[in-house]
């Protein structure tokens, strides 16, 4: 126990240095290092932007010897929005089944004709009536099986075809298809969410899946959850429909509540309600790009460009319908219903409305990102403003300093010089914790800071157990060297048993906890490992060094 061969000393020094090096970047702010990204004064000046980026890269390179990992601050410390969202697998299944309805219709109508009534969809169950079941049933089932699509990259088929009763076929979405749909939709939606929230790809947002139908969004620095929810709450289903602005027709439809079967009544952003064709001419999938622009009166507007096939289609549509109106409909609301004055070539379209710049930008992001395959339900939402975050950091570091000082004074009072060694190893313990957290890229939360402070209090435990043993052995008349030897040997089993049990608690916390609590578990677990190391190895090393150099007759403790 008192032997420290050179390789052991080397190992201790390496571990401590490694911890220190990993911890060091946290002492410097990006501003101090000159690598803090700033707004370039004129973002349109490409030369200036490139020069600035070059300068930033060079500044970063000049610090090559520092590790890049810094402690990530949790949202509760740096402020931001946390949002837990869920998609309903049944809804996805129903939506997907709806999209294959036209395929089903054309498959069954192909020659030789299989007669049937229009299919009836009830949630995620589709019932098809076959009028001549004796002749057509088998053929219909065969055709339906042939058009059964597979989901995403998996080989899972969307529906199961079953005959029910004499003349009905029922299409159901089996459980494995639902899971595949949900996983597929989850991945798609994460992508759409990213493009909507962060169209330029500059923000530090994190979007992570949870389970197979949940998504967690974390947006540091964002202070307005409402805006995010507004952007994500829209399905983003954009269509171009021919519109009917004839006031008498609209009034008749409003009064009767029943427009002609080809038309539907929708709210208009411009005025009241208008009639549009039930079947759209173009959809959001036909749009290549969308961005915020300004209209002729210099109001913010949304401009978008159709892809080439759709542009041709749009040109033909406008050429054939000069004088009539078309409507750009987003989630069942007409955004704009201009009159076609002349054929429009090129596929460039503008939506004018009295938007603010931010509204126009958000709308462009929604249109470009595309339609969400299902509605997002917001289950859990947490926002921390920047002031509270800063206050929490201040309070947390104040509490750590005071806690550390109190514990240090207490240890020196109780064990004198050897207590001082324990304080030294306590400091190295904190450096190791911070180094390990930075190295793992773990997130420091406010409960995490509490975990570190608690570790400060508990880390001395292993030292205390050893010191008490040494005291006892010395009281039994042993020399300092043998007392220290015996003290460490006898304390080992107690220290390991005690810390393993606490480690079990920390692991469980990590596995089932979420957000800040997980952060607490990580610091607690790391703290247990480092405190056993520092108490059992670092303090012992200090003590042995003292023993060798000073050769005390008796340990004052």
């Amino acid at each position, binding site marked *: 126990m008192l032997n420290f061969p050179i390789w052991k000393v080397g190992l201790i020094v390496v571990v401590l240095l490694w911890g220190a090096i990993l911890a060091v970047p946290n002492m410097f702010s990006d501003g101090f290092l000159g690598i803090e990204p700033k707004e370039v004064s004129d973002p349109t000046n490409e030369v200036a932007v490139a020069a600035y980026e070059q300068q930033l890269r060079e500044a970063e390179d000049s610090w090559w010897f520092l590790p890049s990992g810094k402690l990530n601050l949790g949202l509760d410390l740096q402020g931001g929005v946390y949002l837990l969202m*869920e998609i309903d697998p049944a809804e996805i299944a129903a939506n997907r089944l709806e999209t294959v309805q036209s395929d089903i219709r054309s498959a069954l109508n192909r020659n030789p004709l299989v007669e049937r009534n229009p299919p009836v969809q009830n949630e995620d169950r589709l019932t098809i009536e076959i009028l001549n079941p004796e002749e057509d049933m088998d053929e219909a089932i065969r055709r339906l099986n042939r058009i059964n699509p597979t989901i995403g990259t998996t080989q899972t088929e969307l529906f199961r075809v079953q005959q029910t009763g004499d003349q009905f076929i029922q299409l159901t979405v089996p459980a494995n298809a639902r899971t595949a749909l949900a996983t597929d939709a989850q991945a798609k939606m994460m992508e759409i969410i990213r493009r909507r929230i962060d169209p330029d790809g500059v923000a530090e947002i994190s979007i992570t899946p949870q389970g197979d139908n949940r998504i967690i969004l974390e947006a540091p620095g964002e202070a307005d959850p409402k805006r995010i*929810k507004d952007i994500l709450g829209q399905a983003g289903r954009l269509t171009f429909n021919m519109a009917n602005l004839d006031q008498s027709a609209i009034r008749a439809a409003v009064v009767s509540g029943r427009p002609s079967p080809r038309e539907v009544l929708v709210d208009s952003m411009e005025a009241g309600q208008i009639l549009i064709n039930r079947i759209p001419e173009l959809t959001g999938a036909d749009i290549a790009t969308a961005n915020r622009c300004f209209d002729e009166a210099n109001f913010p507007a949304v401009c978008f460009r159709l892809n080439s096939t759709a542009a041709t289609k749009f040109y033909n549509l406008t050429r054939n319908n000069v004088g009539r109106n078309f409507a750009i409909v987003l989630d069942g609301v007409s955004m704009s219903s201009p009159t076609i004055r002349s054929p429009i070539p090129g596929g460039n379209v503008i939506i004018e409305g009295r938007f603010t710049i931010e509204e126009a930008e958000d709308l462009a992001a929604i249109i470009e990102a595309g339609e969400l395959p299902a509605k997002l*339900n*917001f*289950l*859990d*939402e*947490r*926002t921390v*403003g920047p*002031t*509270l975050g800063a*206050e929490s950091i201040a*309070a*947390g570091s*104040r*509490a750590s300093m*005071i*806690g550390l000082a*109190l*514990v240090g004074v*207490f240890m020196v*009072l*109780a*064990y004198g010089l050897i207590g001082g060694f324990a304080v030294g190893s306590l400091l190295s313990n904190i450096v190791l914790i911070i180094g390990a957290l930075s190295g793992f890229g773990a997130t420091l939360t*406010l*409960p995490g*800071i*509490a975990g570190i*402070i*608690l570790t*400060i*209090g*508990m880390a001395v*435990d292993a030292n*205390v*157990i050893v010191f*008490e043993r040494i*005291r*006892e052995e010395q009281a039994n008349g042993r020399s300092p060297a043998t007392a220290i030897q015996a003290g460490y040997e*006898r304390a*080992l*089993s*107690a220290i390991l048993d*005690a*810390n*393993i*049990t*606490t480690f*079990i*608690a920390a692991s*469980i*916390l990590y596995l*089932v*906890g*979420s957000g800040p*609590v997980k952060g*607490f*578990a990580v610091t607690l677990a790391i703290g247990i490992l480092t405190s056993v190391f520092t108490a059992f190895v670092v303090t012992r090393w200090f003590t042995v060094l003292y023993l060798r150099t000073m050769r005390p007759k008796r340990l004052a*403790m």
Partner: protein
Amino acid sequence: MLLRLWPEKTKVSFMSLRFIALIISSAALAASAIMLTTKGLNLGIDFAGGAVIEIEQPDDISAQDIRDVVEPLIIGEVQVNSARGTGPNAPNIAIVRFKPQPPVGDETPDDAQNRAGDEVSAALRELIGAERFQIRSEASVGPKVSGELFRSGIIALTVALGLMMVYISFRFQWQYALGAVAALFHDVILTMGMFALTGFEFNLATIAALLTIVGYSMNDTVIVFDRVREEARKYKKLELFKVVDLAINATMSRTLLTSGTTLLALLSIFLFGGPVLRGMSFALIFGVIVGTYSSIFVASAVVLLLGIDRGDKPKREVEGFQGVG
């Protein structure tokens, strides 16, 4: 002269106090059970669902003004609390809380919760004025997640207790495991009772605190048990009652020192760590005190009651990090 929290070489008979301790513990457990069933826990939104909005409150806006604009939007009770800002320029704070909202029309309960939250913050923004309106924090938890969080919290506690029990049976003997788990239940129930009594908010951070208490109390218990095991092996003929006393006396100085340093650290969180950590550090402070008590008077007393296997060759010992003693 160095500080001594406990004199050297004492022979206090802790175990003769075990019946008094039994009465005290039973009374405290009964009181906790009564508090938990009658008054109940003040469940935070993590577990009860609902919303909490914390904003800066300008001097010319009173809590009553806030209540007046929020109440018409909310079904059920609305709590508005004002808190003085700490620090020279710190603004005053208003905290608005309300329970989960019932759905209207074909809304889901989660939608209803969201809508209410949005409406309330819009109304507050209008009352205070957009340029002065500052959200400090906002949280809205739907009924679906709050139920899950509560279940996962309970599961965490149970699984942790179970695993620790297995570990202790493996390293010691089953009697020790029962003693340790009895002590842990004692600590957890008393801490929860304390939360019911004081009305401190019971939330996810409290579950974290409870698990830490479990870890700490177990730590403390293991130290005493380790010594009991050692002394029992050393003095084979000594009756168990005296062996346990010997072990407790020998570890008492360590127990007090460690509790002391841990409590110092926790007190600094409680006093200086800001309002967010107050409930958590309160739970930890109480738990450390109760956990220290229970290692001696619950865990050790149960071991004494059950007796231990003191054959010449301990059956459940495993090779490994066994000390020389």
